[in-house]
Structure formats: C-alpha cells, structure tokens
C-alpha cells in the first residue's frame, strides 16, 4: 500500500464513538450534564481513541496513577494546563476551574478507576461544577458500576459509551499505517481481525509482523494463502502491557 497522507484513524469504531461522545458533550444544551464516560477492557484501543480525540480537540489530558492522592491529582491537572500549581486543594480546584472556563479545550481523564478507588470522585465533580467544561472520563469495564455508588456524580454524566471489540473494518483502517510498504489482501485482513478476538493491540502486532515477514520474503504483497504458506502463524498472546510510571 502506498503512503496515503490523508488517512486517519477516525474511522476506527472506538475512535468514532469516543469522538462523538465528546462532541455531544461539547455541543449539549446548557441544562444537560457535560461529562461522558468511555469504558472497556484493556487492549480495545481506548488509548488510541484517547490520543485521537485529545489531538482533535486539543484537549488537556491527564492519566491518573494508583499512588496519587487527591492533591496530587489536582496538581497534575494544573501542571498539564501549564499552570504553577497552587498550594491548597481549594486553591487548586479554583485555579483549574477558572482556567478551564477561559479556554475552549475539554479535559480528558484517563484511568479514572484510580480516582474511584481513592474515593476522590468529588474532586472531579468540583472541577466540573466550577467550570462546566466538557469532560471525557476513560476507564475499565467496571467504571459505570463503580460510579453508581457516587449518585451525585453519576447524575452529571451525559452518556456512558462502551468500547467495542475491533472488527475487520478496523483492521483495514490500521493496515494503512502498519502495512504501508506492502499490500495486504482483504482475506488476510479479515483473518487477522478474527484471530485478534476484538483486540486492537493484537491486530496492530500482527499487521506489523505481516509487513516485516512479507518484506523479508522479498515480496510486496500478501494474502491469506500466501501467509499460511509462510507458516508464521498469528500472534494471539495476552498482550497485557503494564503501564509504566512516566514522569
């Protein structure tokens, strides 16, 4: 496949759904709540969706860590917005809310589960109440259930959007990026999607492998019979990548 400069991952199902959810929050009538929740298992491409959505809307993005205290969460959000964090929680909340009001940019909070476990959801609610900016909260499958406990928070969520399992259409979109030097036939793309059992991560790994093996076999195109003949199989491993602590 040739280098197509006009491709994006916007057609990926989860990217589209995540974007639409935030879009609804951004264009909502004033009386409706402005937080949306996007949730699903690891490997379903939530990070891809988060990255695309963050880039599209130039959003502020924060990923929570299990060790963070309430104050640490607030300070991290402030830093992400380019502010010098204030000293008290009260001041921090006000600082963040005031700044959010001033900008047209939404806030994305990833790994929201850690905030729920820390019983810190009210700090997010306070920021929302102080700014009313659209927020996208991302977490694991249990996030909607865990949030039920926080009734006052739950009621401020416009929409709960579950991440979907990846299909052949998604694999086709990704092949433009992961197999850009070789041409990969639709039967092989479909098989890759089938073997991946819904995981975007497995699709990416297999597409990259197919490109590499095709090139080293001296070919520029590959289809399903060709791939089976190479006897390289499909990688179906449990690709649980620990999210390393970065900072």
């Amino acid at each position, binding site marked *: 496949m040739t280098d197509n*400069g006009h491709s994006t991952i*916007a057609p990926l199902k989860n990217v589209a759904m995540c974007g639409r959810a935030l879009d609804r929050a951004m264009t909502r009538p004033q009386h409706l709540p402005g937080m949306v929740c996007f949730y699903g298992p690891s490997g379903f491409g939530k990070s891809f969706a988060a990255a695309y959505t963050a*880039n*599209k809307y130039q959003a502020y*993005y924060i990923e929570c860590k299990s060790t963070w205290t309430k104050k640490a969460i607030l300070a991290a959000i402030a830093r992400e917005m380019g502010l010098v964090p204030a000293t008290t929680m009260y001041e921090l909340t006000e600082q963040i809310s005031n700044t959010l009001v001033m*900008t047209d940019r939404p806030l994305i909070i*990833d790994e929201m589960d850690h905030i729920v476990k820390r019983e810190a959801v009210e700090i997010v609610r306070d920021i929302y109440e102080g700014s009313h900016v659209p927020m996208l909260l991302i977490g694991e499958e249990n996030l909607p259930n865990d949030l039920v406990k926080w009734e006052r928070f739950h009621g401020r969520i416009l929409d709960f959007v579950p991440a979907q399992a990846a299909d052949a259409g998604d694999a086709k979109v*990704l092949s433009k990026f992961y197999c850009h030097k070789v041409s990969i036939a639709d039967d092989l793309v479909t098989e890759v999607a089938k073997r991946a059992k819904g995981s975007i991560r497995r699709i990416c790994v297999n597409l990259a492998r197919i490109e590499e093996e095709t090139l080293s076999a001296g070919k520029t195109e590959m289809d399903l019979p060709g791939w089976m003949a190479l006897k390289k199989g499909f990688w179906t491993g449990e690709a649980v990548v620990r999210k390393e602590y*970065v900072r």
Partner: protein
Amino acid sequence: MSTREDLWKQIRALGIFTIPQLLETTSLDRTTVDLYVRSLVKAGRLKKEDVAESQAGKGVYATKYRYRLIRDALEAPRVRKDGSEVTQGRGRQNMWRSMRILKRFDLATIWAASGTEDHQVAREEIKTYILFLARAGYLKKTGEGEKAVYMLVRYTGPKAPMIQRIKQVYDQNLKAVVWPHPDQVPTGKKEENE
C-alpha cells in the same frame, strides 16, 4: 514574552480599549498592534465599536473606534490576517501528546494516533521527531529499524519539545536547550534531513 502574548495580556486586562491605549501600555509599533487587533476582530474575539464624538479623544489619542473583548482565552490566540487560526506546530504538538498517552509505541502507532482530519502528520516528520527525541533522552529505544519500540521516559510538560532549525532540541517546558547538551562538543556527524 512574545509580542503576541504581551498584547493579549494587555487586551485581557483592559477588556474595552482603543488602539492608542494599547500603544501607551506596550512598546510596540502601531503597525504590529493594528494588525493583531484587526486579525482578532476577524477571528471573532474582539468587537469593533464606534466611539461617541465626545469621547473620541484629542491629538495622539484621537480615535473613532474602540474594541471589546468578546471571546476570551487563556493563551494568546495565534491568528492570520484573515482571522483563521495558525496551525504551525500543531503536528509536533499532536505527536508529543500521542507519545504521552501511548507511552510505549513504534513509528506506525504514533503515525496512526497523531493525524486528524484537520491536520495530517507526515510519516517522515514523525521519524525525524522520534530520532531527535531519542537523542535528547526523552525516548528509550528497544529494537532496531522501523519496528523499534520506544518508551517515553522523560515527560517534561505539556509543550512539545521543538527541533530548531540549527538542529538542536529546545524544551519549552524547561525553557532550555536539551540537545546537544551544553557541555557536549558537537560531533560533526552528518545529521539526517529534517
């Protein structure tokens, strides 16, 4: 502080202002101020209003118009003459943001994550950016070639590090040149094309 930021700060502080008022509080020349104000009007951030004759001022303060801030923002808007947004640096910012969100990635992953309908990012641009970020110590590389996997090991803040024309990496968060390291003698090795 850049001219633009300087002016924007004044505009926000004043709320309603005239051009002579802005000139008084900044050391910028009339052409620069006029251009930025006009662009902001086109961008829908300022509203141009007539001034009643009695308030029009005298001498150097004489003016027929005043401006009202109608759409505020924290950061100084980057606008062209026609009011459209300047998107220079958007690609770099998208790549940096994608790296932060994905943390462990290869070239293809950042390529997929960084382009949007409004702003495409070329594969070559990403390759160069990754190369320089790895050199400057932001990324740790495992594996070789195009399939190499990188990990973001040094996140200094939300602003994307810049590759300057003279092939050095400047970090806007630290406000410092991070590569080549100031103590390092340039190797004289031929750099890859930007």
